């Protein structure tokens, strides 16, 4: 009954969105709007090499020529791209060398968010708990990255991408934009032009990363967009587990978050990427909240490489996100586990693409969608099998759960098979919460909300199991919080 108790406690103690505070740190902004000068400003601010600036400007040119996509099943007021700050950073007092020099205001933010930034206080008070290295990105810049030395001993590079551009320019240049090309889509092009920070990870051949790596994104300033870029390279035979979390203050404006994540897995490498997305979803009337338009893609270049995406999507006003795998290597494998929960006026159009190019490549998709309130949630996915990819296997399962009369849940899968030896199964269901199960739980003394939380936790269990421990507990709580107020 521990889970039940936890659910009850969670529901009782937490308000709707506990990360909705703002922090008063001294910040510097680039002028509003987007033009080549802003891009030059960002590039200069980061001390980037010349080629990077050219790369950005080229991306900007491409972006200007592109149209904002409208095919997703989401409706939102269009973004005025000239009315945003593209760069906002806490004012630095001579770049902090260690944690002690970081602005205490900032540290307080992360403490409040429950993010362990002090290396000795990893998972406070738990003896022998696994270590997690954290890169904390605050608006447009990375404020601190922990455990860098310990990671360096293993040969692992984990640092803000802006730093990597200075310290390992060749490595970045070799891989940046090779998975998500500059002109891939509207938001990826925008990101390529203006991204200001994000994480860079390189795991050398044969190395099993000694700890979980984590990035924590925080939007703080108003009227800013956050455009971070993450690049993960897992060299031959390496392994890394990467966690990503995000929150933002409650504001009645819509803020744009347009990130790009690129993963490259070489022969026998494995990357596990987990996200708990908890951006501010807007208030009960649907005012405010984050527009979360991100492009995440993994390139399983190497034979027997493996990438696994796990996501828990509970936040954001509008989500547009399809973490995908290009399965080029022979016997490469891609996995996608997703929980998407929408409530209030939230809209989510999310799913995955599995592009099978390599022989005997395999993929597995488990997507659980829960819609409540007046929200709308869509699973959109593609499984495509190339003519030369023999022996491919895919299994897809999409289940949707509807809570209430005014929400919608949609499933739009695309299946394209061009090779006769492929075996592919897809199943999807849409149902509402079972009255009988609710009644049973309530009869045994649970309130309606507790019963709903319990049943939903059961519904999404297959995916929760795929999350690393640290996230599983948090995710489970999130499930309960996100559905608060959805019944009755």
């Amino acid at each position: 009954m521990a889970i039940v108790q936890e659910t009850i406690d969670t529901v009782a103690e937490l308000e709707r969105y506990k990360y909705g505070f703002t922090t008063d740190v001294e910040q510097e902004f680039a002028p509003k709007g987007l033009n080549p000068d802003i891009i030059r400003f960002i590039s200069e601010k980061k001390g980037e090499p010349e080629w990077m600036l050219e790369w950005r400007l080229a991306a900007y040119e491409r972006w200007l020529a592109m149209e904002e996509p409208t095919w997703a099943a989401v409706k939102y007021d269009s973004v005025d791209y000239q009315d945003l700050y593209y760069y906002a950073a806490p004012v630095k007092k001579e770049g902090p060398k260690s944690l002690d020099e970081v602005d205490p205001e900032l540290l307080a933010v992360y403490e409040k968010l429950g993010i362990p930034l002090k290396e000795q206080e990893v998972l406070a008070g738990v003896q022998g708990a696994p270590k997690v290295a954290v890169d904390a990105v605050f608006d447009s810049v990375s404020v601190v990255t922990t455990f860098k030395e310990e990671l360096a001993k293993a040969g692992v590079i984990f640092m803000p991408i802006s730093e990597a551009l200075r310290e390992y320019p060749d490595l970045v240049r070799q891989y940046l934009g090779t998975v998500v090309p500059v002109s891939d889509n509207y938001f990826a092009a925008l990101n390529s032009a203006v991204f200001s920070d994000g994480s860079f990870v390189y795991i050398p051949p044969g190395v099993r990363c000694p700890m979980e790596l984590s990035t924590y994104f925080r939007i703080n300033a108003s009227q800013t967009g956050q455009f971070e870029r993450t690049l993960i390279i897992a060299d031959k035979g390496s392994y890394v587990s990467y966690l990503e979390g995000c929150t933002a203050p409650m504001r009645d404006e819509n803020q744009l978050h347009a990130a790009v994540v690129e993963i490259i897995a070489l022969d026998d490498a494995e990357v596990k990427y987990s996200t708990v997305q908890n951006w501010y979803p807007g208030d009960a009337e649907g005012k405010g909240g984050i527009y979360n338009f991100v492009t995440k893609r993994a390139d399983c270049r190497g034979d027997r490489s493996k990438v696994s995406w796990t996501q828990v999507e509970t936040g954001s006003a509008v989500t547009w996100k399809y973490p995908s795998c290009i399965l080029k290597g022979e016997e490469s494998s891609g996995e996608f586990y997703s929980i998407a929960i929408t409530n209030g006026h939230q809209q989510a159009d999310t799913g995955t693409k599995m592009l099978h190019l390599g022989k005997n490549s395999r993929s597995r998709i488990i997507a659980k969608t829960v819609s409540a309130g007046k929200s709308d949630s869509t699973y959109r996915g593609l499984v495509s099998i190339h003519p030369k990819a023999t022996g491919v296997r895919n299994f897809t399962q999409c289940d949707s759960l509807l809570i209430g009369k005014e929400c919608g849940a949609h499933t739009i899968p695309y299946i394209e098979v061009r090779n006769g030896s492929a075996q592919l199964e897809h199943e999807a269901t849409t149902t509402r919460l079972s009255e009988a199960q609710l009644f049973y739980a309530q009869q045994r003394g649970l309130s309606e909300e507790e019963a709903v939380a319990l049943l939903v936790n059961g519904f999404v269990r297959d995916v929760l199991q795929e999350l690393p421990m640290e996230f599983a507990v948090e995710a489970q709580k999130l499930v309960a919080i996100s559905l608060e107020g959805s019944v009755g």
Partner: protein
Amino acid sequence: MKALARLDLTDAATFPSRRVEEWKYSDLKRFLREAPEPSGTAVVGAPGPFYDLGGDAVVFANGRPVGVKDYIASGDQTLRLRFISDAVGTGHTAAARIVARPGARLLLLETHEGKGSAYVAHNKVEIDVAADAEVIRIVLTDEPADAISVAEAEVRLEAGGRYRQTIVATGAKLQRHETRLRHGAEGADARVDGLYLLNGARHSDQTSVIDHVSPNGTTSQLIKGVVRDEARGVFQGKILVQKGADETDARMGHHGLIASDRGEIDVKPELIIYADEVQCAHGATVGTLDESALFYMQQRGVSADEARALLTHAFLIEVVDRIEHEGAREVVREWLTARL
């Protein structure tokens, strides 16, 4: 997404390309850049595959009605609806309207019979199923490999109406059967099945949009298909459950076999749901013939080709078995067996 103008063979601007989402897998524009010259007259020849089942006939020859083009059924009736094409490189459009009056039972036997080559046929039928009426629609196609053929059906179901559809497609250069069905009143019941058996470079697209706007509707859909050689099978099924269409029960299944190295199957089964008291599910599989079953049969003296034909038959016949009308079922069974 751009709104799709209704296809009109006389206006090339209405020819959709694959950039139009609903035509993603059937790029009409690629094969048809300009409006085709109108077809001349055609002679109605052989009596058609359903002749032995009797009943009335509505016949179109190269788009022109031979006699009446509308049909109203009351009581228990059989109608053979024949779209006959006999043209070379020209195009024609036919439009029929079928009404089943309250309580009527209509067996609608539709055939798309083609001769000649490289013609473009566009056949439309509107079907109104009144309260408590029943329509069983069976569609057989037999068209040249270089023809382009687009068939559209608009079906409206009233309260308690029953509709049963089985499309048996053998493809063409581009062949599309589009069914738009609306559960317009409470308690309607639809079965929207199809099968495709494609050789050579044939293409068959079965697209359906089933719109539940009223409560207590039921939809059941089973599509099965086999592609050989370089053929391409397409199934796009959309089930919409609108707000208020409570107690909807909708099930969709697609199962395809690729029996060659270069065959292709594209499937897009969509569920769009805005009501919560519903049960909806879809399943889709694509695979190939079971090697171990083939091996087993060959071991017992069945030739490889025969074993393949037997397994294919067993796979597809499930769709035929769901046809409620015995006489029609037997015609389809024989027709299919002859093509394996």
